[in-house]
């Protein structure tokens, strides 16, 4: 008998995740790089890190059964942690591929996994996002080289603790978190240009969501909506607004009653959609200098406002808009989660980046803004 949907925990290990890191290869995507890493004496740590997370689960749920994939894709780690693997997927060959991650994730969901714990990096997160698992929560055991996405726990033990709590309660509150990916070839050539790949539901740290002295439910979805209400309040008639990607901007589109493009840029005026999923070239053609504002939010966990996942809003676009081109909107918690690090702008135009640096107003709700520092990032 399969477990009922939404209560079981499934585990996927990407056995090659992280292998390229110690070898200085900036990533582990693709068989050629993995072979190069092995040739440099590297071994992947994902299985070991998954074991640490699973040991934490074992502490709370002795001898529990865990849905997983065969061999190095999870079964071995589950066994090593003293838990009982229930294998629902076996890779065809020893050398696993991205397709194996996708297929394993789908098999886990079919078998009743409500939460998939995966050990890997941004590439693994991207594959799980691509599996398109309706309603299944995801949490990363940090084990990759690149971890720009927001779906990772702070440590393997912390990931295990959240999964253990999930098993105790059958569920936990979730919130949409961004999955970012970087083209490793670019990184190897000294550039970081991550794209916003999509969002996955991630269990929310219960300590975060339960501030007992807070009279309102501090739900994350609610916070995005409150921030969006603040942005909509600031919109003026006749002005052209470019809505960037991100869940907060999706909430803005929702409040305006327009169909937003989750990963793209849309153009609105007076609450009406003027153009969808536009390119930089489209934008350069439609901007009215002095009467246009780009509405952007914080993309990913690194604090980027520009240059990550919203490259359509380019330096040329921003220069054409003119002075004061941005309306920044984000829930307060997104600023808090930066832990004191500044917001970042990286348009590729140093002069523009310098002009945008300083302090910027971030709209966090109706009649609420925070003044937060912005910097251009250090050269990669």
């Amino acid at each position, binding site marked *: 008998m399969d477990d009922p949907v939404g209560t079981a925990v499934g585990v996927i290990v990407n056995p090659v995740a992280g292998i390229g890191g110690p070898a200085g290869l900036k990533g582990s995507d693709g068989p050629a790089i993995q072979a190069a890493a092995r040739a440099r004496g590297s071994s992947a740590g994902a299985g070991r890190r998954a074991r640490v997370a699973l040991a934490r689960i074992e502490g709370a749920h002795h001898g529990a059964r865990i849905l997983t994939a065969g061999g190095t894709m999870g079964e071995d780690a589950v066994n090593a942690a003293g838990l009982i693997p229930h294998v629902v997927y076996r890779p065809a060959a020893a050398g696993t591929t991205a397709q194996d991650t996708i297929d394993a994730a789908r098999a886990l969901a079919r078998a009743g996994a409500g939460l998939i714990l995966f050990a890997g990096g941004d590439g693994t997160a991207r594959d799980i996002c691509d599996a398109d698992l309706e309603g299944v929560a995801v949490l990363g055991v940090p084990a990759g080289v690149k971890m720009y996405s927001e779906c990772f726990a*702070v440590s393997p033990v912390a990931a295990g603790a959240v999964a253990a709590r999930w098993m105790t309660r059958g569920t936990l509150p979730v919130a949409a978190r961004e999955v970012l990916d970087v083209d490793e070839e670019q990184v190897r050539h000294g550039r970081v240009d991550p794209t916003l790949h999509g969002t996955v539901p991630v269990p929310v*740290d219960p*300590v975060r*969501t339960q501030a007992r002295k807070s009279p309102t*439910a501090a739900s994350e979805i609610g916070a995005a909506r409150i921030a969006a209400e603040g942005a909509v309040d600031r919109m003026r008639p006749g002005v052209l607004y470019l809505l960037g990607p991100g869940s907060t901007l999706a909430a803005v589109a929702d409040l305006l009653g327009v169909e937003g493009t989750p990963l793209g840029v849309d153009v609105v005026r007076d609450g009406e959609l003027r153009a969808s999923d536009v390119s930089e070239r489209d934008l350069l053609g439609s901007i009215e200098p002095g009467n246009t504002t780009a509405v952007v939010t914080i993309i990913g966990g690194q604090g980027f406002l520009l240059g990550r996942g919203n490259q359509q809003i380019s330096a040329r676009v921003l220069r054409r808009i003119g002075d004061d081109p941005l309306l920044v909107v984000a829930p307060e918690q997104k600023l808090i989660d930066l832990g004191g690090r500044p917001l970042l702008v990286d348009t590729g135009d140093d002069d523009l980046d310098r002009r945008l640096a300083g*302090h910027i*107003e971030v709209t966090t709700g109706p009649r609420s803004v925070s*003044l937060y520092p912005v910097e251009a990032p250090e050269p990669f």
Partner: protein
Amino acid sequence: MSLPIAPKPTLRRFHEARWDEPIIFELDTPGERGVLPSRPEPDLGTGAEALPDELRRTTSPALPEIGQMRVLKHFLRLSQETLGADLNVDVGQGTCTMKYSPKVNDALIRTGRLTDLHPLQDEASVQGILEIIWRTERMLAEIAGMERVSLQTSGGSAAIWTNISMIRAYHEAAGEGDRRDEVITTIFSHPSNAATAKAAGYRVITLYPDADGYPDIEAFKKALSPRTAALMITNPEDTGICNRRIAEFVDLAHSVGALAAYDQANANGILGITRAKDAGFDACHFNLHKTFSTPHGGGGPGSGANGVSEKLAPFLPGPVVERDGDRFYLDGERPLSIGKVAPFYGVVPNIVRAYAWMRSLGAEGLREAAELAVLNNNYLMKRILEIPGASAPYATGRRRIEQVRYSWRALYEETGITSEEIGVRAGDFGVHYWTSHHPFVVPQPFTLEPTESYSKAELDEYADVMAHVAAEARETPDVVRTAPHNQTIHHIHHDDLDDPERWAPSWRAYRRKYFADGDG
């Protein structure tokens, strides 16, 4: 020969009472009575006829009917199921300033000479209490260095609201009410500063700490403009860090014509050491139920004190108590006053308690209380920071004033045990702590404030419990995760408290949401 009484172990073998007591509404036994009050004289009426129609109810309230002895048992049992301020080493309720409230002051407020007073009595017959209010105001004005003080508000947030209301009235009187529509605060100021400013119609700008943990003065300069109505700021902030440039912040606010309000709800580390006036503030407030020893929150009614400079004195809520020779009287004829912010004179029992507390200590005693509170805090901080996995983010390595917001971040990353789980486990040893105000800026937070009331032995006991539970998080995490084990109840599922569809803050809401009762 063995001792007749075994020596006590380092950690207390505590167990809270567990009465499994029903909710009082479930004790309803129709026909039972606690007291049978005599009927009023026939020609006196009931008093209800003096109420407007819309306030008079047409059906009797659905109150439970219970015998007197059962009521007494009910509440005694509940009292045994709490870790009250008089029972535990209550240093874990950081920001709340849990200090000893001397019992003699409670004896004072129970005398008939106070309890028989009525707020509508003629002034001539209540000269004593008016004098106490007047003298308490004068003492607090001296402590803050302010021109005048009002004791009318019934709580801390009400006092913050009163400050922003006075500031709004001040700008309106100067014809700048419409233009000045922004208030600046900091992320570590009490959230009621932002909340009351917003409720008063202002746009709120929040500042974050700079790299040293102080409010970012460069951001503040950028935020200031002719639109700024006020700076509303707590100092020391909840981190326990005192802003050394506070006077500069106030000067900058004044330079654009804005006023500055000082949240001194908790002034326990600075009594007799520094004053709101010295930093140039226009308004400040104290919570009598924090710094001035009156019982706190659920332990008794709150009470706020608003201090103002000469500039804001005409706007104080009213009426205010004035002195004319030997006579004290209420002055309600103040055209610029923001009016009443609470019924009658304020929370009189708390005013009497605070008055008695200040008189018993004197000026030197108040300063000594602050010095001891700071000393206790820095001793406890040393003990806590010796525990592996604990840290005090921001201004690392520097001393704090009267409290510290600590973090279990490192312990969490190592063990997956949350701050909340550690706090719950501490309950098995008869102590507790509170994590943090919303928003959670410090990861895995806990906030400790030892005040002047606790001995070194008690602070050591508290730190020993923390060290023990942190060690358990590493060695026997299941013991911590499944705690409490020696408490009145076991785990609480918070989902019901976080979901507006399910939360039930009253019996009526509980009946409505779970039993579909019309109005319960």
